[in-house]
Each structure stands twice: as C-alpha cells, then as structure tokens.
C-alpha cells in the first residue's frame, strides 16, 4: 500500500478507503447486518471524513479530537513494569504515536514517529499476532489489533516513511510523474537485488556443501578403522601371529577388490628419506630410513634391515606434530599399538605425499597447523619441491609402470589411484595450486563432487547447477548489473531487460 509516493493527503484518503472496506467486512461479521441498527451504519462517521470508528462508542470519542488524530485502533498494550496487557486505544497523529488506556484514560505511550527504528509484525508467545515498534532501544508490543494487524502495520509504516520522504510544505502533486524509463529501472533494480541475494545464498550453500564433504571424509575415515577392528575381532584370539595371515583367506568376502598377495619390495618408490626413529617401547632414537611406497610405508634401520612395514590399510592414524616430526600408528585391540615416531629434516617433502595417500587419517597437531594451512614459511620455502613431489606422485598414479619398470602395484590403493585419468590429473594439478583443501579432490570416489564444489571459488561459475541452460542465463544476468549500474544508457537497460524476460520465460 502506498508504494508510489503521491502527496500526503491523497495517499491518506486512499488508505482510509481501503480501511473502510476492511471495517465494513468486520462490522458485518460482528454485528450481523449493520443496516438494521438504525438506518445509518454505525461505523460511518457523520462527517464522512477521515476518522473512521470501529464501534459505536469509539465513533463518539473520535469526533472530539478529529483534527489531530489521523486514525486510532482499539488494541492492547503490554506494560512491561506490571507484566500485563492493558486494553486501550492506539492513535496516530501526523507526527507521533500515542496509546491511551481504556480504564484509566492515562497516556501510556507517546513518542515521535521519527524516533522509531523498526516496526515489525511478530507473535507473542508464538500464537498471538502482534505488532512491535522499536523506539530508541525500547520495544513496544501491541496486540489484538482491530480490524487486523496488517492494516495497522501498513498505515504506521506509511506515515513513518512519510516523515522521511515528504517535504515540509507537502509539494502537492509534484512528484507524480513517473516515466517508463524509471519504471524499467525500478524493475531491473529489483531483479538485480534478487540476483544479488541469490548469489549470496548460492555462495553459502556452496560452503555448506564443502562442510558436508569434510564431514563425510571424517566418517569414512572412522569407518575404515571400525572395519579393520571388526575383522580383527573376527579372527580367533588364540591365533598367535599377526592378524594378516589369518585375514588373507577371509579377505575374499569384503566388498572391495581383494588384497594383493605380498607386494614385491621392488614396486615404485615414491620417496626415501633418512629419518630418526623412535619406537613406542624404547625411548632412544635410532637413525634409519623411511620409504614411501604406493602400497604402504617401510621403516628400515641404518643397516637397511626392515624394522616394520605398514600396509596402507594398516595405518590407523598419522599425526603431524611439527613439519619435521610425525608419528604413525596401528591400533590393536587387546595388545599395545604399533607406533613409530619419525623425525626428519626432509619430512616436509614426505608430508604432502602422506597427505594424499592417507588423507583421511592424517592429523595435524597444533604446531603443525600453520604448515597445514597454505602459505606458511616451511611450505613457502619448499613450495616447488613439494609440488614437484606431488605432481610426480600423480604421474606415478597415472602410469604405475613407469617409475620402477615393474607393474606390480595391484593392491587396493593403486587400483583406486588408477581411476584418475590423464585429464583429471592435469586438472588436479591445476586446481591444487589454488586450493586450501587439496585432500577433498584427492579422494577418487568423491573427487568429482569435490572439484565441482571447489570450482565455485576458483571460477566465476555458480555452484553446481543441474541445468546448464539455466546456468547460462543466471550467469548472463549476474554479469549484467554492470550495465545496470551505469544507469543512464537506455540501450543497456533494454538489453538487460531482455535477458530478464528470457530468464523468466525459460
């Protein structure tokens, strides 16, 4: 109501006419047929002017100070001090709002319209519809408004806004011309606003998808551990050897590809670095070597004697304590865990590879957090070598035969990695550079979604859109505001408007 800003008097009459109809409806419902009550309906005030009463008694009161009051409504007001609703009358004058209690007749509320900071439709106790007016930090609650809340709200809001837009001498009829161009600009402005909102929502939804992916990864990681522990529980406790020997025959029933027999030691070595090893049981550190293989990790002492070999799926967690120190652990039920703590100067090279191989299990502890977030010093220094290492790894994943000549790597990890095609690897390399969470796109099952989700940060395309056609139009529209901004040229308006129509017809 009253969206076009005509002069004050005409506007007022417009509102009141509508109001009259409203109270007519109400009056009919309340009193049966009002015409029966004595020829003239009670709710038409004798002067036929602006003050409309809503009941017989109200009509009389209003005549007395008709000159000041624009309108008044019977309602109840919540008095905060005594915590009760007081029935009375809410009245509006051109500059202020007043509330008078019915019983005592005292003025409970009286403030200037210009002091209002918010008018809202709310419900008290979630049931009763009421109107709240926020005035300089205090909130006034009005409820059980007659004839209905919306009418009161619209009228109050109108007069409040009129405080701002009406000039003092009420330049009557001056601002009535509204050209077609202006109307169009208004429409475009409106649609632009909606699109801005849409973009905002899309962005936050993209972020939510991101969070979901992260959650899913965590869940998957936990499931892996649970799965392993369960298989371990299944094996009888009297079996004295490592569960691996027992498990191999059983392994045929799980859903995934069967585990490889014994991977030969000659498979492609991803990285071999000298490390200082601390085993869980003894506290003295020994020098040794850590070898990263596609199928697992090997820890050797300085005489190249194998100390321990972790198969990829045996590793339960890897903690990164500092960029130079990690610990690898395999959990067991009923006996101590196997865990090694490794310290190496070249660890920053190994961590990215470990991160790719064990994305779900790796965990950055406090000191290493800076390392996990890109852009901190250790990674910045080693940036090139890390990316080289990472890309080398990807290369190995695509052509597993290349690095060592023997195409033995048929275990689970390897098979999974082979699913990455040449183009995907290329894309991965590209995306990896600009991204915070390379881990998401690394998981081959969810890689596609992960990449899609990440894309909304890298490219200007909005998040996944089911229909490419619609996406085009949205993009076109998203690009148009620049035209719309330089308001003056009508040509650009029409172009944008054309897009707008297109968008809706599609």
């Amino acid at each position, binding site marked *: 109501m009253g969206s076009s800003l005509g002069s004050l008097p005409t506007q007022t009459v417009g509102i009141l006419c509508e109001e009259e109809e409203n109270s007519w409806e109400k009056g009919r419902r309340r009193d049966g047929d009002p015409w029966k009550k004595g020829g003239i309906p009670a709710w038409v005030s004798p002067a036929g002017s602006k003050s409309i009463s809503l009941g017989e008694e109200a009509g009389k009161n209003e005549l007395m100070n008709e000159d000041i009051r624009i309108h008044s409504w019977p309602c109840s007001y919540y008095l905060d001090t005594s915590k009760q609703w007081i029935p009375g009358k809410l009245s509006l004058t051109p500059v202020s709002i007043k509330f008078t209690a019915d019983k005592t007749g005292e003025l409970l509320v009286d403030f200037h319209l210009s002091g209002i900071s918010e008018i809202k439709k709310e419900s008290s106790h979630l049931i009763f519809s009421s109107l709240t007016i926020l005035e300089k930090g205090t909130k006034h609650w009005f409820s059980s408004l007659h004839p209905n809340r919306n009418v009161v709200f619209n009228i109050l809001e109108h007069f409040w806004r009129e405080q701002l837009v009406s000039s003092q001498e009420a330049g009557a009829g001056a*601002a009535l011309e509204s050209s077609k161009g202006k109307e169009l600009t208004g429409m475009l402005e409106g649609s632009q606003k909606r699109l801005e909102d849409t973009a905002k929502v899309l962005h936050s939804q993209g972020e939510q998808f991101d969070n979901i992916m992260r959650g899913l990864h965590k869940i998957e990681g936990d499931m892996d551990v649970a799965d392993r522990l369960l298989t371990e529980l299944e094996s009888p406790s009297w079996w004295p050897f490592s569960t691996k020997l027992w498990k191999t025959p059983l392994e045929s029933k799980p859903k995934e590809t069967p585990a490889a027999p014994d991977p030969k030691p000659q498979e492609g070595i991803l990285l071999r670095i000298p490390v200082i090893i601390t085993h869980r049981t003894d506290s003295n550190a020994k020098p040794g070597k850590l070898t990263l293989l596609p199928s697992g990790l090997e820890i050797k002492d300085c005489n190249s004697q194998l100390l321990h070999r972790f198969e990829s799926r045996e590793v339960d967690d890897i903690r990164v304590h500092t960029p130079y120190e990690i610990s690898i652990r395999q959990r067991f039920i009923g006996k101590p865990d196997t865990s090694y703590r490794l310290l190496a100067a070249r660890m920053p090279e190994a961590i990215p590879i470990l991160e790719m191989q064990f994305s779900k299990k790796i965990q950055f502890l406090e000191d290493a957090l800076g390392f996990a977030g890109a852009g901190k010093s250790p990674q910045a220094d080693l940036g090139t070598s890390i990316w080289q290492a990472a890309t080398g790894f990807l290369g190995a994943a695509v052509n597993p035969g290349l690095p060592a000549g023997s195409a033995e790597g048929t275990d689970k990890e390897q098979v999974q990695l082979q699913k990455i095609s040449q183009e995907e690897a290329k894309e991965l390399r590209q995306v990896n550079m600009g991204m915070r969470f390379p881990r998401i796109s690394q998981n081959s099952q969810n890689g596609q979604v992960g990449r899609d989700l990440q894309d909304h940060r890298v490219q200007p395309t*909005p998040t996944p859109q089911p229909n490419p056609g619609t996406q085009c139009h949205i993009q076109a529209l998203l690009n148009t505001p*620049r035209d719309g901004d330089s308001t003056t040229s009508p040509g650009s308006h029409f172009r944008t408007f054309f897009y707008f129509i297109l968008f809706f017809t599609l």
Partner: protein
Amino acid sequence: MGNGISLMEPGKAKIPNPNFGSGVVFPPGPASGAFLLHSRGNTRVEEACEMYTRAANMFKIAKNWSAAGNAFCQAAKLHMQLQSKHDSATSFVDAGNAYKKADPQEAINCLNAAIDIYTDMGRFTIAAKHHITIAEIYEAELVDIEKAIAHYEQAADYYKGEESNSSANKCLLKVAAYAAQLEQYQKAIEIYEQVGTNTMDNPLLKYSAKEYFFKAALCHFIVDELNAKLALEKYEEMFPAFTDSRECKLLKKLLEAHEEQNSEAYTEAVKEFDSISRLDQWLTTMLLRIKKTIQGEGDGDLK
C-alpha cells in the same frame, strides 16, 4: 498426556537405585572386566534415558512444552552420565527447542549447555548455529539486543575459525545492523567495511559489496559529514564499481544537501532513490537520523 506422565515415572523411580550410581562411576571401557560388571547399571541408565525421551515426545504431542523441555533436559543429563556427549548435546538442543515455546530463558540455558558440549567436542559450526538460535531468542522474545549482538558475534567468531566465511559474514551483518540502531556507529562501520572488502573480490559476491559500503558511509555520515566524504572517496578508490552505483550517487547528493543545510534537496534525493528501489527499515531509520540533524540545525537558526 496422562500417558506421558505414567511413562515418565518409571524413569524417575530408577534414579535412587544403587545399581544406577555404580554404573556411573566407571566409564564404559571395551573389553574390560568392569564393563561386564557394570553393564547392568548402565543399561538401567540407558533405559531411563529412553523413557525420558519417550515422555518428552508425548509431552510434545500434548503441547506441554515446558514439561517436554524438562524431560529432554533429564535425558540429556543421563546421557552425560553415560559419557555419550553427542546424544547429550542433541537432547539439550531438543530441550531448548521445546522450551523456546514456553520459557525463553530456560531455552537459552539448555542451548548454552549444548554449545558447551559441542565446543568441547570441537564441533564449532554446530555450536555457532546454536549461538544464532540464542541470539534470535534474545532478539524476538526477550528483546535484549545487547545480548543478541554478543551471541551473533560469538557465532561469527566460530564460523570464521571454521573458514565458513559466508555464514560468519551473515552474523556480522546482523551485528552491524543492530550496532547502528543502538548508535554504536564505529562498530557498525568497521564491520561493514570489513565485509565489503572481503566480498568485493569474490566473483559471486562482488555485486553486494556496494551495499555494504553504502551502509558504512551512511554510518559515517551520521557521526560526521566530513568523515563521510573521506570515506566515500576511499571506497570509490578501493572499489571502482561503487562510483557507478545509485547508492554512491545518492550519497553524494545527500552530502551536498547536508552541506547546504537544504532539507528540501535532501528529501528530494531520498524520494528519487525510493521511487526506484524501496528503502528498507534500516535505511529509513538512518536517513531519518541524518535528516534530523539538518532540521535540528535549521530550527536553531530560526530561533
């Protein structure tokens, strides 16, 4: 409803049972002897939990919100004894939702308890979400804007920590809007500028950046006209697209009108802007405040 009460009683009756207490002392440890010994006590507590939850759901059907909230609360406490933090937090949230309809203050207490658990578990996103719920309760039911602001800020902090910048911005904008309403303009300005600079580089969000700069400039305007001018220049330099926006043009006109103390011109400019895109309530309030400074001075001249 009667059903609900009778269901709740057996749960209550179990509490003084000695078994119950012993079950609580030892956390359920897998494959330990204690587990077998005390599993009976634990199952009793579990049963009590279940009963409370069922009772709460019955109360919900009967729309007895405060009783439902109370039952959920009890269930949450029992879950805590069973060391299942996650269930406990979920029950606290349920309790909060039930209480929201009857006793806002109690709802806030429950949600706070849930938040404590969630932050303890490191689940900050969900904690932030409940901070927003609390802020909304303060906003709508208890009308304590200061506290609502505090909770929105806390939520924004948590979201930022989790790299959920979009959600963080949403909270911060709420804070800014309320801060401006409470005349804490400096705070509002800082937030709007920060959000504006964050969003202007984002391909998806840059279209809304002008709105934030506009609002920041308006806050500057209320405090001091000269500051507003400087700020406007700064924003134009930072974000060239801002120069072409209608908001920027309006600001320039308003500044001019204010300089000349011409309330007619001011009104005219606002009217023109409003005829194309309707001013929202926040903008109306702020523009009115500025207009008052013109009129106030004008009146002073007349006298």
